[in-house]
């Protein structure tokens, strides 16, 4: 099939960007969205035009590197799917597809469709861990964890940190990302010692990084390729509230 792409091109954060139209010819329905872009880029290089910059790595939906806004939806029209796992069979011959980068104040554009998501790393660095140095761990089966708890923690831990939640949110909020980590660790017995301090510190960093607040639109959950539930945000708010009331020293 043949498609028309409207792609956001931007030299870097200092320059304004604009949409540029490119044809995508002979697209096979078995291609992934990124493979379609590969083919377009190979053509562009042959024609002497700079290829479209987009992020990707594993191309199997787990590393969280890829992600563009396709026709207004982060990762495109298919639910629970990363851009690299989106296949062209979902589009029709003659379609026009608009492709944009994640748009959020906390994610400045590096080039074209590539954005800087290091703000996510800094949220984790401020408390998204259990402080246990190598060598000091007790025997693994010493603390039983109910199967249901482990499964719930795994649900929250499935986040791949792609940033689609932020891109989808009208407030560019990072609540879903932050809540998923706070919940993953807060559900487990190993994460209890730092549970409330963690919530305070990670939320503070989230605010410092210029992510917006949550107004319960639910766009984040809808866009999430790993179906992370918005319920984690409620859980985070509960932990945060309790921490704010009870904590003495930690902020």
């Amino acid at each position, binding site marked *: 099939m043949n498609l028309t792409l409207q792609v956001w091109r931007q030299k870097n954060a200092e320059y304004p960007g604009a949409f540029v139209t490119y044809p995508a010819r002979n697209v096979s329905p078995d291609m992934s969205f990124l493979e379609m872009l590969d083919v377009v880029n190979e053509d562009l290089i042959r024609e002497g035009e700079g290829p479209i910059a987009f992020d990707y790595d594993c191309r199997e939906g787990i*590393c969280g590197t890829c992600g563009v806004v396709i026709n207004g939806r982060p990762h495109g029209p298919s639910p629970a799917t990363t851009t690299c796992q989106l*296949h062209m069979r979902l589009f029709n011959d003659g379609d026009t597809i608009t492709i944009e980068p994640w748009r959020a104040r906390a994610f400045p554009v590096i080039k074209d469709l590539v954005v800087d998501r290091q703000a996510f790393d800094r949220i984790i660095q401020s408390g998204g*861990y259990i402080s246990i140095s190598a060598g000091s761990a007790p025997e693994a*089966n010493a603390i039983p964890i109910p199967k249901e708890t482990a499964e719930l923690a795994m649900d929250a831990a499935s986040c791949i940190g792609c940033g689609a939640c932020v891109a989808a949110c009208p407030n560019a909020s990072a609540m879903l990302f932050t809540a998923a980590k706070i919940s993953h660790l807060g559900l*487990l017995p190993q994460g209890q010692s730092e549970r409330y301090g963690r919530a305070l510190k990670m939320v503070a960093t989230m605010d410092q990084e210029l992510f917006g607040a949550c107004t319960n639109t639910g766009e984040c959950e809808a866009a999430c390729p790993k179906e992370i539930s918005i319920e984690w945000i409620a859980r985070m708010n509960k932990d945060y509230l309790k921490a704010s009331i009870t904590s003495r020293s930690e902020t």
Partner: protein
Amino acid sequence: MIKLDTKIPSGPLEKKWDRRQFRLRLVNPANKRRYNVVVVGSGLAGASAAASLAELGYNVKCFCYQDSPRRAHSIAAQGGINAAKNYQNDGDSVFRLFYDTIKGGDYRSREANVYRLAQISRSIIDQCVAQGVPFAREYGGGLSNRSFGGAQVSRTFYARGQTGQQLLLGAYQALSRQIGAGRVQMNSRTEMLDLVVVDGHARGIVTRDMVTGKIESHAADAVVLCTGGYGNVFYLSTNAKGCNATAIWRAYKRGAALANPCLTQIHPTCIPVSGKHQSKLTLMSESLRNDGRIWVPLKKGDTRSPANIPGAERDYYLERRYPSFGNLVPRDVASRAAKAVCDDGRGVGSTGLGVYLDFADAIGRLGEETIRERYGNLFHMYARITDEDPYKSPMRIYPAVHYVMGGLWVDYNLMSTIPGLFVAGEANFSDHGANRLGASALMQGLADGYFIIPYTIGDYLARSGSDRIETDHDEFKRVGQEVNERTRKFLAIRGTRTVDSFHRELGDLMWNCCGMSRNAKGLQHALEKIPSLRQEYWENVRVLGTHEELNHSLERAGRVADFLELAELMCRDALERNESAGCHFREEHQTPDGEALRNDEAFSHVAAWEYKGDSVIPVLHKESLAFDFVTPTQRSYR
């Protein structure tokens, strides 16, 4: 001239690591912060090493080419991690894990290293659980295990089909804690482009900032490479697109021996290629082989849909050939068997390069719900990629390049032949011999990073002292200059072919001549072909844009240039290893049943190659392998 000193401790197998730990010199806690350590790569080995070294008090700089350390390709490992916990009471032990790994590696790995790996495996699980890794659990709250390719005990710990992700996030979080505390300086989107060696010691690296193009030098007292494998030399592999050999290849060219480069693992259960546009291959965890049955039609060219082929006209070839292991034979055996039936004209799918992995019996026996619980995410992934429903019709699978056992040669302390250059994880050659067992890569990466490097690096630093070297040293300037010139050269060629077109051509050549099976004629053909392809590359590649910006073509150009050199060494090594062993199947050497036929007399050694110049044939050094605790036998999974 390189000398291979393995530094394996003497004494009984089970005491070697204890003894070594005691003999290793220590760095005074107050002095640790005076030492700078560079860690390249942030996968399981890199993140765990960087975090652990910082916990000890060293000054650490960590580098990764991805936009965040959380994205390293360890994240894609699905199946699990082995550990000799014997929670299932099914007869597992450190010795059994050791034995299985040595045997699975077809007796081409070091006993002492592998035994240590099995010993450490237990601490890894403790560490990961304490970090909050949500491993699968039983209703009683204890950890759950499953059996995994090539093992007859259940020793594999897992977190759904995302074990690598969860272990990596554990290591990433440990690393993040140290970054937050200011003890690790993290450099993302930064690629190592060369190693700096001063007076024979590794003293730092030269990097390129992938956003600004800035070439920078980083001085250190020790360098740890954790940069993964080079499977992308085949273009199509299950590796992430960015995985590359540049760090280890640069180290090789600076004097580090490269061991067993030809040993490449081809994973049996991947989704078959669908067309020319294919950019990578997707693995389906081999845990699927626990419940799925592999078959092809008995008759050649049988194009009926699988549902219309009655049981009697199906060939469950693994169960037929290997009645005791059946569908759970090790990876190399399963891959070759698939190739054999496809070569025989009995492959399925539009290309004829595929076999069925059928869950109908398991669904009948256990119910669809149980299968969904066990493999739901994998089935979902398969359906999305192929547009077929594996609950209703069998999956089609075919082998794909997945892992390399070869890598930089290291001694027992994981130090390369360049003092001060340590290598961990898939980037080294150490533990898997000629074939890696399933669920052992995660184990090795974390063993190296959490529990080996932190000890052995201290010994090196304590012995070598700290004579400061700064980045204004002449050698840094010289190497920085070389990197700059090389990078600009790609932009100056202005040829007509894209980087990818060369990479695909190289990949095809390697898959055909140095893939699942090899022979002298094919390897010689590749050895003739690669230099001319390389020459054309340097004359005719087209890299657009500039050096001072994010430029993916430029990044790839450097990596492919190195693949074009490494490929030649792989073929040379494959030709030199004139036997079959594990994944290295030389067609000239097989048993009457078509199994790999080793030649222990002539090839019970590690082949370590020393670089001697671009137009000079590298020198082969042999580290002979002694088997004092197990007796090499012909592997049998019948």
